[in-house]
């Protein structure tokens, strides 16, 4: 009968058991911390397709790493070889032992150190097949390890500009991880050298090594090393970025069952937090990092600090909240939400007095107004936009009134973004009452910032449109017409409008009617942040300027005559440095209005109102 124990397996067993207990404790705690109402939700969703989807997603994301592949194949392969390869090693190992012993239940370490315990070469073809494939898989994984090592020292090879800085836990886990597979190869080869139980790779390598080394003694040492590294890695895992490996799996299930972080920090937030693999993809896209080389505030660091409970104000605040990182996060963590929650926390008791707003009231300039136009603070600094909107509204012949003609009350979003939710509510309440008092059935604003807060925080039971949506409708319903010019126009998606409110098409449809739309790499979801964002509370002016400058020069370098955008803030930020004219879509439309058409249709506008505002 065969030997089934040797002291060198102990490190592995210790590490493994530690890992299991650690995870068990943490996960169950977080699971309990889930927001009220989540648990029944999970129960109901458990036996449904959602679970199957989750499994599929786990396979695709956690093993194959589809997302990363999309972003950059090299990186994708690296992750896949490590994750999927390792997974297969375990799977095949298990099968091999099963077939070999005929028993399914074996000591947990048995498959892993199989070649140590079973020295006689396989006889059956089937077993040899496993032996071969195990060797190939090992090669597969090792290729990943190599890439990882290269990445660490020459990150650009894998297409990443920067890679994350590491903590102690990380470094320990990382170095053990790197050693695991080379050691496995070494141990198996050396063992093969004197027992001949190797296969296509291990055997020749073993024979070669054995030709000049005392294989037997070294093999035993190497097996020790292998076990120690395995155990060490598992022990370090809960304290390292590799925590993301198990956590992500759970997160995917939770997400598929419809559990997300909302306004408050909850158990699921913990899962999200620990699901961050610190892959560093968010660093490259971060405007603050790109232009100003600030390497402390990006999401990966934010989450790390949060995890290690040493998060600083300045970090929480130094973010444009442009949402680009969220867009590319392979783990799809709701990053901006996470940061917003921390901002809310950082702000203590309210410190505002808006009593002066009480005096203001809505006085309708006409009995019934259908459309209410709200320019917003920023649009008051870009009269071009304001005037164009008036011109368009006049042309459309709709009964409208201009809510903040005399100057606006802030929509409250800037306050909210700075974590002063309660105070923001005072402002939104005030605006809300004014808006409702107008009796309009549609609210149109020129400012994406206002637009977003109207949509999210105002609970208005009337139609809310950004002026791009509104103008688009006017054009579709032939309420206004424009003469098309052959100017080339590149469109810059404002964060709050694009990623923020998923409005990508209307602006482009309008532009196609005005002139020729020029495509460019960083558009739609990948649009850059103009640097003007009010969300960043600690960026210095010069840093801000750097961001604005690079965005401007990027856009100016596109093959276009005009840079178009749909946000007063973007217009100002880009306009400050751009070498090409920067126009708001409203301005483009207003200047291209087809007067003759106007006159004909002026009569029909009553019908139009029935059409869109049923």
């Amino acid at each position, binding site marked *: 009968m065969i030997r089934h124990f040797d002291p060198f397996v102990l490190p592995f067993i210790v590490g493994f058991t530690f890992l299991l207990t650690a995870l068990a404790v943490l996960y169950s705690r977080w699971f309990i911390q889930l927001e009220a109402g989540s648990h029944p939700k999970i129960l109901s969703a458990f036996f449904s397709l959602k679970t199957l989807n989750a499994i599929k997603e786990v396979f695709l994301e956690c093993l194959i790493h589809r997302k990363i592949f999309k972003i950059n194949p090299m990186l994708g392969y690296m992750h896949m070889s490590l994750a999927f390869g390792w997974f297969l090693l375990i799977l095949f190992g298990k099968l091999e032992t099963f077939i070999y012993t005929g028993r399914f239940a074996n000591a947990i370490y048995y498959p892993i150190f199989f070649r140590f315990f079973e020295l006689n070469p396989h006889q059956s073809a089937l077993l040899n097949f496993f032996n071969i494939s195990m060797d190939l898989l090992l090669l597969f994984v090792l290729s990943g390890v190599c890439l990882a090592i290269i990445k660490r020292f020459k990150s650009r090879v894998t297409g990443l500009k920067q890679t994350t800085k590491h903590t102690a836990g990380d470094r320990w886990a990382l170095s053990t991880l790197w050693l695991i597979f080379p050691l496995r190869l070494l141990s198996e080869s050396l063992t093969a050298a004197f027992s001949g139980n190797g296969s296509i790779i291990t055997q020749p390598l073993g024979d070669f090594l054995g030709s000049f080394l005392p294989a037997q003694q070294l093999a035993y040492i190497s097996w020790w090393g292998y076990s120690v590294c395995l155990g060490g890695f598992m022990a370090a895992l809960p304290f390292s970025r590799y925590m993301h490996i198990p956590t992500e799996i759970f997160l995917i299930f939770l997400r598929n069952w419809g559990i997300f972080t909302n306004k408050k920090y909850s158990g699921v937030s913990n899962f999200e937090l620990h699901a961050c693999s610190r892959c560093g993809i968010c660093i490259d896209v971060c405007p603050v990092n790109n232009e100003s080389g600030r390497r402390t505030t990006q999401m990966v660091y934010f989450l790390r600090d949060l995890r290690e409970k040493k998060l600083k104000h300045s970090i929480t605040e130094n973010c444009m909240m442009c949402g680009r990182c969220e867009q590319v996060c392979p783990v799809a963590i709701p990053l901006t939400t996470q940061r917003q929650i921390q901002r809310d926390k950082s702000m203590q008791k309210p*410190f505002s007095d808006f009593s002066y707003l009480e005096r203001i009231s809505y006085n309708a300039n006409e009995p019934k107004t259908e459309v209410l136009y709200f320019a917003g603070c*920023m649009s008051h*600094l870009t009269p071009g936009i304001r005037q164009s909107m008036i011109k368009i509204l006049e042309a459309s012949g709709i009964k409208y009134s201009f809510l903040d003609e005399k100057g606006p009350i802030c929509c409250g979003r800037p*306050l909210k973004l700075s974590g002063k939710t309660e105070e923001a509510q005072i402002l939104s309440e005030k605006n809300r009452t004014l808006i409702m008092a107008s009796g309009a059935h549609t609210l149109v604003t020129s400012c994406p910032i206002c637009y977003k807060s109207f949509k999210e925080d105002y609970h208005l039971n009337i139609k809310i449109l950004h002026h791009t949506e509104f103008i688009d409708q006017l054009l579709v319903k032939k309420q206004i017409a424009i003469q098309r010019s052959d100017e080339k126009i590149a469109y810059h998606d404002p964060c709050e409008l694009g990623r923020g409110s998923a409005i990508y098409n209307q602006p482009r449809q309008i532009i196609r009617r005005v002139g020729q739309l020029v495509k460019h790499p960083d558009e739609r979801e990948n649009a850059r942040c103009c640097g003007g964002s009010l969300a960043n509370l600690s960026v210095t002016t010069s840093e801000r300027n750097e961001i604005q400058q690079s965005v401007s020069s990027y856009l100016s370098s596109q093959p276009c005559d005009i840079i178009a955008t749909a946000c007063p803030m973007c217009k100002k930020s880009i306009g400050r440095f751009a070498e090409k004219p920067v126009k708001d879509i409203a301005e483009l439309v207003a200047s291209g209005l087809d007067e003759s058409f106007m006159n004909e249709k002026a009569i029909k506008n009553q019908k139009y109102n029935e059409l869109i505002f049923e």
Partner: protein
Amino acid sequence: MDNNDFSLSVALAAIEPSFAWCIGCGSCTATCSAAQFTEFNPRKINLLIQRGEVAAIKQELKKCMLCGKCQLICPRDVNTRKIIQNLKRIMQ
């Protein structure tokens, strides 16, 4: 002036020194959303910090809506919004 309290300006200078670059042109006040409804005067706040007349500032601060217009028009690139933001935190 000799017995004014400059602790605030010192504290603020560490976080955001740009308040000292103000040339008192008043464009911030001119554009301020809050200033159209009240006596609120960002230019003056900025000045009072420099003069160490802290007491006067506190109530005034509360009127700011943080809308950020002032920042956009400041000819001296004074980081007005950040200043107010931090004042609020310091004085809270």
